[in-house]
């Protein structure tokens, strides 16, 4: 059983994408005044799409310590503040989404196993681009998993900057979206592959 914390800045609808089951137990960690989250019982911390990067900047040292202790971070939102160790997200509006073509560059952990990349590039409603915005400047040695038309990093796995694991997207949302109509070979599949990998990793390291 994986124990995950979802950072909550009061957005409605968050629990729909992160519902506990027999593989993973979620808790919501609400950002409040004097916020001092305790991640000591968590295997994974999720910064979902639309999260609060001001509050996360304020706890950057706490997050770093969690990662150095072997924890895992999944950030699915553009971190305009410098709280993610080693990696930087860059907002860029120079290319319209109709020009975006995502392709796999590397996949050591099988995160895209069984995934139809066509569904990342054009969703079931005909919209292109996976809602990813800008790109990531990855840390030296980090694995660039997915790149865009111009070879820029869109999904990064970083296991070198800290003692833990980081899965970062250029603000592309990830979650278990089967409850809202996602198919089994699209965005939600990547998320479930991530959870499978982290479950295995936790079993190995504990």
């Amino acid at each position, binding site marked *: 059983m994986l124990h995950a914390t979802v950072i909550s*800045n*009061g*957005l*409605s*609808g968050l629990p729909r994408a992160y519902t506990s089951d027999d593989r993973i137990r979620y808790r919501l960690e*609400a*950002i409040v*005044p*004097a*916020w*001092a989250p305790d991640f000591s019982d968590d295997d994974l911390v999720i910064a979902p799409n*639309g*999260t*609060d*990067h*001001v*509050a*996360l*900047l*304020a*706890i*950057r*040292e*706490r997050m770093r310590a969690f990662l150095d202790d072997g924890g895992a971070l999944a950030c699915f*939102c*553009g*971190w*305009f*503040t*410098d709280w993610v160790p080693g990696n*930087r*997200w*860059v*907002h*860029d*509006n120079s290319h*319209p*989404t109709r020009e975006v073509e995502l392709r796999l560059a590397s996949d050591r952990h099988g995160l895209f196993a069984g995934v139809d990349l066509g569904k990342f590039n054009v969703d079931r*409603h*005909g*919209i292109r*681009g996976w*809602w990813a*915005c800008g790109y990531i400047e990855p840390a030296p040695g980090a694995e660039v998993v997915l790149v865009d038309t111009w070879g820029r990093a869109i999904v990064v796995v970083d296991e070198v900057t800290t003692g833990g694991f980081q899965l970062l997207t250029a*603000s592309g949302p990830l979650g278990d979206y089967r409850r809202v109509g996602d198919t089994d070979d699209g965005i939600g599949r990547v998320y479930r592959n991530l959870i499978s990998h982290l479950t295995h990793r936790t079993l190995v390291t504990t």
Partner: protein
Amino acid sequence: MKRIGLVFNGVWSQYAVATAPKYRELYDLVYIHELTAARIATLDALVIPFQSNQPALEARKDVLYGFLAQGKKIAVFGDSTPLWLDAQWEDRPVNNYWWVKTPDQPPIAHTDATHPVYAGLQPRHACWHIHGVYTRIPDNSRVIQRNAEQEVVTWETECYGGTLFASTLDPMVEHGIQQIRHLDRYVDRLTTWLCGETPSGAFTIDPASYGVRAIPGVATGAPAGVGVN
């Protein structure tokens, strides 16, 4: 001089609008956990964008209605709760693909083009997609936009002293995201209506505003008790 407070939930798209060179002289990022009467005293108007922190807004309800009581304006976008806004918002599936599949059936069917925000806007520029509807609004409110089912999308009231404008559109967040490229039209009119000044030029991004360790106007990443640890 900054005239409009953008109530800020730490979300990057909200930040992108308020720090864009086109808007940054007019918009002041007011971090939700720092929202006090003193913090917004010099501002003419507030924008509460989509993806706001609803429990935190409820906790600061008195500050918001005190601001309105001074005759000022507040514009609310996206969802809300009756715990701080005397109206009933209800969720609906977001149709952000209508322009691909049914371009003759936009999510908004009726717009009152006499409202200053909408005057002169083409229908496409007054509607991209909506996040739910209002099934109850305050008495004596003016309905500005409805969907094809006659449900309320946008409304306005002056019953609190100033002007309270509410819409389930999400112009600030989508403008910051920059995947819908025509939102200058809506946001510029909204800005003019809120403060009397019209921004000019194209939406651009200042790279220096990203990867930051401190945010202008926000207390060094440690706002109001959200302490640096």
